[in-house]
């Protein structure tokens, strides 16, 4: 009985930890397609750094010739005001997560505190890509 009582307490503790904002963040992510979620997660881990569309498409595994990332992912995310897409030149765009969105701000907080390993992996991928180019 004591064990059962403890486990119930644990569940109650978990309930109080998971607040409304976290749940809404999950809802937001669930309304995005798989590649959009990956893009958002990568940008959250890289925040406040901005990356180019070419770098993002490399991280997502897209062919650089395909240009699918603009049409299918970035345009949509920008339309929903989830990212900032600043076109530096007609062909080069700087991409950042929209930190003004309260849910994405929460995601950035989580990514910065819990996602250090993932940050390393992404940064290594970017460095490797730059080395390949040279």
């Amino acid at each position: 009985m004591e064990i059962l009582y403890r486990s119930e307490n644990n569940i109650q503790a978990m309930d109080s930890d998971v607040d409304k904002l976290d749940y809404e963040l999950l809802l937001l992510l669930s309304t995005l397609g798989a590649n959009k979620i990956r893009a958002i997660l990568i940008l959250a881990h890289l925040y406040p750094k901005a990356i180019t569309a070419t770098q993002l498409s490399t991280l997502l595994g897209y062919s650089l010739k395909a240009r699918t990332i603009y049409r299918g992912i970035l345009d949509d995310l920008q339309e929903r005001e989830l990212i900032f897409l600043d076109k530096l030149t007609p062909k080069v765009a700087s991409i950042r997560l929209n930190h003004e969105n309260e849910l994405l701000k929460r995601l950035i907080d989580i990514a910065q505190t819990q996602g250090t390993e993932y940050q390393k992996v992404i940064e290594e991928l970017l460095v490797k890509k730059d080395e390949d180019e040279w």
Partner: protein
Amino acid sequence: MKMNGKFTNLLKAEKKPLLKRRNVLLYSIIGVSIVLLIIFFASLGYSNIEIKPFSDYSFADLTKLPLDSFEDAGFFSNESYGTTEATLQSAGIIVTLPIWGIGVLISSSVGFSSAILGSTLNKTMLLENKEWLRIWSKKGKITSYYLFKRVQINFENNRISILKIGHKYRFKIPVTEGLNLNKFGFRIKNNFYIGYFVKEELVSTIHLLTTQI
């Protein structure tokens, strides 16, 4: 550090089939119909075509059965092709062609119309009898379906309309007090929240809306 193969695989984009099965069927029907139409037009090469002005026809001529007008128009059966011939008479144009040409024309017409009708119905019925649509019945009431890919759901205080535009579904929800959909990627336009979603995102979006409205 050596790259982890599994990780890079996870990052890779999911590949979608270029053509879905039903599209392949649709394109096949249209393709076959086009081939049949080409055969039909080729068959016109073995036909006699004569264009006469309306004044040359009496009312009696125009109401005659095509096979009757065949003799009146002065054509004679061309036995050299070894086929029975028939005439099509319309608006002063008399076309005499082999009977198999008419068969080809009819079958290609049926093929075309069924393909177009099938695709229209298919698109229209995308909004009906779908699991994602049934989710609404738990929260709101589906008041009306419209032809051409539109559906409307009424709630006590709110109303949602979903319209399929190309490959995307447009959600339109009136802006009300206490409802903040901006953070979920909806934009406000003309006092409505507008959001565009692809089919794969529909169920999650509806679930999201049912928790918010």
